[in-house]
């Protein structure tokens, strides 16, 4: 129980997809954040101020890393 033995039979390929699905879910949640919340605290808005793009870029990078390795 404490050692997660009940997950010992999960194939490594399936375990990898647990991580990849986690990144996809986080990405979907990020996409749902309202723009008003993203831009709060800015007087002038530019396209690169959209922090959702930043977050999705970081998630894409880490998704590829975990897909490859």
């Amino acid at each position, binding site marked *: 129980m*404490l*050692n*997660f*033995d009940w*997950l*010992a039979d*999960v194939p*490594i390929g399936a*375990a*990898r997809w*647990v*991580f990849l699905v*986690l*990144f996809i879910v*986080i990405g979907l949640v*990020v996409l749902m*954040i*309202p723009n008003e*919340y*993203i*831009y*709060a*605290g*800015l007087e002038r808005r530019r396209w690169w*101020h959209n*922090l959702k793009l*930043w*977050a999705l*870029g*970081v*998630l894409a*990078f*880490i998704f590829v*890393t*975990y897909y490859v*390795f």
Partner: protein
Amino acid sequence: MLTGIDYVVVIVYLIGIMLLGFYFKKFVHSSKDFFLAGKTLPFWAIGMSIVVSDIGALDFVGISGQAYRYGLAVGNFDWIGSVPAMLLAAFIFVPIFWKAGLYTIPEYLGRRYNDAVRVVASVTWIIFFAFNLGIIFWASAVLLNALMGWPIWVSILLTAAIVGLYTIFGGLAAVVMTDVVQMVVMFGGGAILVIIGFEHVGGWDGLVEKVTARGPAYENHFDLILPVDTQTPFPWTGILFGLTFVMANAYMIGNQAIVQRCLAAKSEWHAKASMIWGAFLKMFIPVLVLFPGLMAIVLLPDLEDGDQALPMLIRTLLPPGLSGLMFAAFLAGLMSSIDSMLNSTATLWTKDLYERFIKKGASDQHYLTVGRLATVALLLFGVATSPVSSNFPGIYVAVQTFLSFFQGPVFSVLLLGMFWKRATPWGGLAGLVGGITVSALLYAFKGALFTIEDPFLYVSWWSFVAGFVLTITVSLFTKPHPDARLGGLVFRIGK
């Protein structure tokens, strides 16, 4: 050993850092300037400061040493062990902390729960930082002595004098802006070593081919996901439950030295952006400090101690001048860790304990002076206690273990405090104290309870679960704060 040109590089670097840090003295007129840089910091500086504060000279050697032994799985700590947590911090916790005008994380716990929770959290961090200072001073000086032949006390006194000067007078602004330079030096030194290393091992394909050809013990050296029954401390279940869900969040959301920088951002947007920018930079840390460990498997096979991998690689590969730059990168790691601990501990002491319980209602100048004196006292304590750690070889692990007792429970209390307005002061205190107790018990009986050698990832998960369940259970039987008191302290969708 250092040559003449290496010494020039190092001395120019040290003088530059000291002058840059001291320059910020003229901007410090109030306690807000000292502890929060007057809330003027831009996202790019904060993000760089977060990354460089998180990796010290010892981590440079330790991570490459672990990569030598265990392979790429060590990279989990900077990839999945940082990115999701930093996004959660950026979009949920940091904006609420910033808008609440906080100076410290325990201050949030005090407002959300009560002073008892605040004091437990604050005292724990102060003890950790204070003892860690001496340990890091000594261990880093021993490392620099082995690497470059510098006398141990020269390293300690020189770094203490330089860091002390700009931290005492320049406050958080000096800490963060010197960190920006330290990060550039650290990334530059690391990148040069990796590029030269790749040339020697025949590029990425050559590295993979030569490492995996060394036999079955190395066949998983390029796998991030390791099976549950792995002999390493990094089974995928531990990485997912212990690291991703608990330790990473506790570190990125509950660590004063990390979050204090975001609280000093010049706007809410900059506070959020700093964490995401930091997450982006953090993804390159494994490339700089982990890959040299993998290269050493090819270039320096059969080392008895994996921690020798990076120092030996530097001696083997780097010409004069570049050795000096790499040495400066080690110093950058040391100084950026020390300055963060000094400033954060001074903030915790002044804001959570002194101003709250010892002398309320004094002038702002009084608290500024107290903050500076606390920094001096901590620095002297760190230098004075540094040789003590040489008499207790296990003290580094002991202090880190002490902090790991605390990570799971504090995150459970932070999480419920942020998302569940029904969480009560008694619930928070029970979750924090009960969770820490569970951690201590799990460690005490780890030989009987766990199958892997160092179960710190599992301990953090189960202590989080204990803190979470205890907080909810006790909260259901005790009285919550009225809604009016929770304004701005609990996350609400659409607000």
